[in-house]
């Protein structure tokens, strides 16, 4: 898929900020979903991920000296959503923290690849340099999530079995 590379550092960083904001919002939404379905452990994990993405967004704001996010322009994602955003239909009400971290890992890996492709395609030096820096940051996030994942037990084989399931179609 072709990639639309921003032509100024400001436009590029605005896109990176939008990416962090989208990821932050989606994690918060998923935390709400899990809370509603009484999966508090995963809700707490998603809430933490949302706070982490919020910190990343704040870092971008500080680096750029922005008091407010710049006016939204149409971001050039490769698909319907930003690379770091978890698809809303990838969750299950009985999922375990291990599953949630797997989703987070995939999101960070997508973000790393996204910035890598942007760096390759960039024609403006400042944009290429910033894309490489963000790629490196995402690589660090990948390692952090992997380290986190190593401490979390793998789910039991019957993790999705519910003796009183919410769905009956007969």
């Amino acid at each position, binding site marked *: 898929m072709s990639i639309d590379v921003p032509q100024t550092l400001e436009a590029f960083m605005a896109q990176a900020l939008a990416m962090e904001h989208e990821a932050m*919002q989606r994690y918060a*939404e998923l935390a*709400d979903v899990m809370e509603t379905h009484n999966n508090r452990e995963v809700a707490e994990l998603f809430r933490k991920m949302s706070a982490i993405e919020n910190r990343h967004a704040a870092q971008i704001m500080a680096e750029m000296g922005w008091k407010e996010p710049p006016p939204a322009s149409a971001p050039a994602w490769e698909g*319907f959503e930003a690379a770091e955003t978890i*698809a*809303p*239909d990838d*969750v299950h009400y009985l999922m375990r923290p291990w599953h949630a971290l797997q989703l987070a890992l995939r999101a960070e890996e997508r973000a790393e690849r996204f910035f890598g492709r942007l760096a390759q395609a960039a024609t403006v030096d400042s944009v290429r340099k910033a894309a490489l820096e963000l790629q490196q940051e995402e690589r660090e996030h990948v390692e952090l999530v992997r380290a986190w994942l190593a401490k979390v037990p793998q789910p039991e084989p019957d993790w999705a079995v519910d003796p009183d399931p*919410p769905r009956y*179609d007969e």
Partner: protein
Amino acid sequence: MNDIGIQPAALAPADFKSAIKPIWCPGCGDYSVLSSITKALAMIGRPPHEVAIVSGIGCSSRIPAYTSCYGFHGVHGRALAAATGLKLARPDLTVLVTGGDGDGYSIGGNHFLHACRRNVDMTYIVMDNHVYGMTKGQPSPTTEPDWDSKLAPGGTKIRVFHPLVVALAAGANFVARAFSGDPNGTAALIAQAIRHPGFSFVEVLSPCVTFRPEQRDWKTQVHASPVEETDDPVRAARRVMTDDGFNIGVLYAGNRAPYSPERRTPPAAVAELEAEFRV
């Protein structure tokens, strides 16, 4: 700017969310549609108390409770009738109607036709998942004839209802299709629908992951690029008659003036009102 010279802060999507958390199934497309509606309302920039959201019955009809706007959770299939009355009584409000395919095309099918025909200035957002989800998976008017389920063994064998064709033929002034998996694109389409005068109809493909898990594949079937907008009803008709159900974008944006009856000064006394009805 207000009358004491203060510039109000720009509205954010969170300003349109209520404290009530949705209780849809995890993975339901309606979460994203709710998010798109709040984003669209932030783009429009009218505060929540100037917006009313009306719904009927069904999973997606729960949306008014999840927003901070005025809401009316009405009778099954009658959301458009209630919304029409509301908009005519309070033309200053931005009126949105939300619901699903069963509520809108079956129980409320007649109201759908006449809402398109009347062309009152409001926006109808239908979250179409081709099934009655709330009542455990019965086929709806948009269910494929060969969809086999325990409740319809072998499928219904009944031709599907085509809401976009019907909306266009019945006179809707704005006809669009969106996909819940594209929340930013959906938000932009809803904002455009709200700004467009007259009756705007936005059909959102919104998967039911519980009763139609195969709809998770919609994300690979929906065409990534929106169609080119047209105000030509003939071109729009040809397009909606021949599309594969996965085109997104504005399929028709017409120029018909919205229905807006002349407003009379209300009678000062009940006796005057009674006199109007005396035979």
